[in-house]
């Protein structure tokens, strides 16, 4: 029962955000602000996560492919393709479910329990347009950029670990990556990152916007936002793989 009410309220919130988008021009400053906070500020952690994912994958793949007749370029192929179609999007999604999701839920949750959302409404603002819309749009716009960053960082990580461990020559790594590269894989990754961006920001807005019950309520909303975002990212990842691959 609770779940149905929640789904209903979630849909209403998103519907309201879309419906009110005509007056969005008033609030474009919020969008820029959110794009910086969601996208730009997340780049360091994404580069770190991407880099180490690529590095570890390279070492592990070369450890797993011991048979001599498999060319070393295969390692580059496997690492780069895994990054493109799965790892870059999912890992940045999971990392940002914590980083971006928690921030959004805390911000909106605090505003909700301290009557700041009421204050906005009472001044004549549409609080959904003002608060939810820019955050969701920023997620949808910025996640593809984050995804590309994660892919690049992952490839650099792969190259770095090839260099450091001597698992394979860097030229083989690059050649392997180029052999399997198709634009379709990139589109797939970008579609995923769009969806993940929407999931994280919309769920976190929902949890924060409707938070009640003081500081404790904000804490609860924040935890739920991060956990639910992760769950729905994994679910969506599965569904998208099923539908698109």
């Amino acid at each position, binding site marked *: 029962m609770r779940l149905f009410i929640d789904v209903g309220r979630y849909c209403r919130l998103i519907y309201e955000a879309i419906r009110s988008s005509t007056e969005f021009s008033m609030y474009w400053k919020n969008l820029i602000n959110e794009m910086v906070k969601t996208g730009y500020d997340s780049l360091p952690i994404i580069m770190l996560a991407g880099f180490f994912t690529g590095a570890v994958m390279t070492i592990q793949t070369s450890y797993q492919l011991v048979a001599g007749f498999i060319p070393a370029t295969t390692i580059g192929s496997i690492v780069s393709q895994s990054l493109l179609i799965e790892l870059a999007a999912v890992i940045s999604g999971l990392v940002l479910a914590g980083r971006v999701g928690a921030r959004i839920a805390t911000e909106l949750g605090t*505003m909700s329990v*301290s009557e*700041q959302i009421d*204050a906005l*409404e*009472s*001044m*004549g603002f549409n609080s959904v347009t003002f608060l939810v819309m820019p955050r969701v749009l920023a997620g949808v716009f910025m996640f593809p950029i984050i995804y590309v960053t994660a892919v690049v960082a992952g490839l650099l990580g792969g190259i770095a670990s090839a260099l450091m461990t001597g698992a394979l020559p860097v030229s083989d790594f690059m050649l392997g990556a180029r052999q399997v590269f198709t634009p379709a894989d990139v589109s797939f990754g970008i579609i995923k990152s769009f969806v993940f961006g929407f999931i994280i920001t919309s769920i976190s807005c929902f949890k924060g916007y409707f938070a009640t019950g003081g500081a404790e309520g904000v804490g609860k909303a924040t935890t739920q936002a991060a956990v639910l975002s992760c769950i729905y990212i994994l679910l969506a990842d599965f569904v998208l793989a099923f539908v698109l691959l």
Partner: protein
Amino acid sequence: MIEIKNLTKSFGKNLVWKDVSIDIHPGETLAIIGKSGSGKSVLMKHLNVLLYPDEGEVLIDGENVFEMRYARLRKLRQRFGVLFQGAALFDSITAFENVSFPLRYFSDFTEQEIRNRVLESLDLVNLSDIGNKSPAELSGGMRKRVGLARAIVLKPDYLLYDEPTSGLDPQTSNEINDLIINMAETLDITSVVITHDMHSVLRVADKVAFLDEQKLSWYGTIDEMKTSDHKALKAFVKASEYTI
């Protein structure tokens, strides 16, 4: 004129109050008193439709506010200045920006006009030199006064004060009381003041509404309150250790 008619509100299974009816006449100041949790803030939030009731209506100049479409509702809301219980300042911007916030979005004032209007509002609440501080750097009483400055900056027709003097020292409380009286008299503003402070009630209010036991338990003028022998009301007034 605000007419509250047979209003009933519950959250889930919890009834807050039922069948509340009050008329608030132009220029009048209504005090809403009652225990913590009696639903004073909830009642106030129905006046500018931050909450919707289960039953009943609120008529403002004859029009039911709960049936208004959004564009009209927004205009209505802008006729209300609201001081929220915890001031509800936006904590990512400075005190000055908080007060200028509604002007920046909803007036066509120039930068200089906005500045003047904000300083004028801050001056009215006796805060002239805190503009550049963030809300986190202000004391509770200062935050409240910034909230009040923000509430009056658009020169509203109605002012809603949710516990304007709680947490303030007696002197500042008196200044706020004077301000409430002043706004009501000079600008002919209709005010609703939620308060626990009987001193404040006696100073500012024309009428008193007492919420108790999930209903409007008593309603009348200040003079009627002084002579009333309504038990719960007397007990409530007495508990505030103010003898009348």
